[in-house]
């Protein structure tokens, strides 16, 4: 077997490692893969165009931007901060832990649309998580602010990934079922969903523990940044 079609994988790995623009890297890898598999340039461009058009559905979420932007202009993020400041017990870690639990439970009931980065994380969860840290620690260094935002996105991902497979009608369960059927094995969707539960519990325990440890880690990071910025001032 020829290894030539792996050229595209190589381009992706090298391109990402060299931090070349990912969109450029991926487009180049796609064209190179097609050519390496001995397809003519015109048919490669055609397949490439067709695949791009066929996957337009992943972009539909951007339709939320006009209303999200409008609400941000009218103070949505500021309001989200005010709400969090009224909850005395709220810390960044606990807030994200609550969101992780909520996201995992709703996804396991098939309600995967109750979340997402554009609809929930940017306008609501990330500002709330930042505000909780601000109340606890005062003005935050940029670095800490960015780390909290990344954690807000991660909580959404972990919650939906390890929740949705407990729901029997989700795409991955249907894919497993139909793949096994083609191989002559008949399985029940409910059995597959039940065997997603141990992993779901592990995911909640592992990521939840990390979120509870996050508050202390943020405190250390903020102290370190402040000590660093204080030192030159003291010297002078």
């Amino acid at each position, binding site marked *: 077997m020829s290894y030539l079609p792996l050229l595209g994988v190589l381009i992706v790995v090298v391109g990402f490692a060299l931090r070349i623009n990912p969109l450029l890297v991926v487009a180049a890898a796609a064209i190179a893969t097609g050519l390496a598999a001995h397809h003519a340039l015109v048919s490669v461009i055609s397949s490439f165009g067709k695949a*791009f058009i066929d*996957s337009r559905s*992943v972009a539909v979420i951007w339709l939320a931007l006009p*209303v999200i932007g409008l609400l941000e202009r009218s103070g949505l993020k500021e309001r989200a901060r005010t709400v969090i400041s009224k909850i005395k017990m709220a810390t960044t870690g606990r807030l994200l832990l609550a969101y992780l639990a909520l996201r995992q439970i709703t996804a396991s009931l098939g309600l995967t649309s109750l979340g997402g980065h554009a609809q929930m994380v940017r306008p609501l969860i990330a500002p709330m998580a930042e505000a909780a840290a601000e109340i606890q620690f005062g003005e935050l260094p940029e670095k800490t602010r960015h780390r909290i935002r990344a954690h807000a996105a991660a909580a959404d991902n*972990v919650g939906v990934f390890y929740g949705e497979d407990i729901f029997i009608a989700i795409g991955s369960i249907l894919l497993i079922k139909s793949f096994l059927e083609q191989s002559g094995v008949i*399985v029940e969707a409910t059995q597959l969903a039940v065997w997603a539960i141990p992993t779901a519990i592990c995911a909640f325990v592992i990521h939840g523990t990390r979120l509870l440890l996050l508050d202390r880690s943020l405190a250390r990071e903020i102290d370190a940044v402040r000590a660093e910025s204080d030192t030159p001032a003291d010297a002078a």
Partner: protein
Amino acid sequence: MIGLEFVYVLMGVMMFGIAAVNLRDRSSRKRYVNGAFWALYGVTFLVGSRLPDFVNGLLVIGMVLVMAIGKLGGPPPEAASRAEREASAARWGNRLFVPALAIPAVTLLGTMTLKSLHFHGTPLVAAKDVTLISLGLATVVALIVGVVMLRPPLAAPITEARRLMDAVSWAAVLPQMLAALGTMFALAGVGPIVAGVLERWIPLDTAFAVVATYTVGMALFTSVMGNAFAAFPVMTAGIGLPLVVHKFGGDVVVMAAVGMLSGYSGTLMTPMAANFNIVPAALLELPDENAVIKVQVPTGLLLLVANTAIMYFCVFR
């Protein structure tokens, strides 16, 4: 019947709006570059379904060239000052959450009800697209609620969309580009080659080696493809079914269910899963595009260990 095409027309109109706002913005040095990029993207939504595949391919290559040569510009500063936003937040209070929460609420409602609606005996929406169509309708409903409530200047929604879209920039297109790469991988038979390499180079003579090769292979292959769905058929046909199940007598349900979940560890750790990892980094305006991945790596690795243990201890019951 309302189809996905309706949602794509909305997308196309929005992209042209964003391009127009860019072109009219004299304060932006990159107004022509950004305008051209979003206008080309708009064409793929408005008429992409009717254009020949080759023309669509050229449009996509055109977008990549505009980006690579012209370099896209960043977002404009926010239209409202912090003081204005705080005053508005104090004025509207929790009512501001209503349009935001209308998006998930209406999506959910649509997903549950639209399937059963019929018009002259034909279903109003195609069942397979019901979630996406509901999401499209929900954004329209939320926007109408927001505009009626807040009474902003007429152009505010589209100028705000432009601000956010230019913040996300090229990352908005990356998930689609990766889907196209996945198709090219499939066309070139990349999957079977990778599975062949794994089988040839890894000693698969103990039950643990087989289970670990399957789970780690799922995670690795998912990192390459960006998608556990693409890795699952290849890895399961190559290792899961023949070795875990047939040779060592493992249970097919545990193998398949935990195998798929092992792939998700790969999804957490790869830039190839752009819509989960790169897009939120752009959307949250993080300077490091891999910031979300870095946060997720410990969880991904620990869960891979957990899944390998779950499969090893449960699959051979």
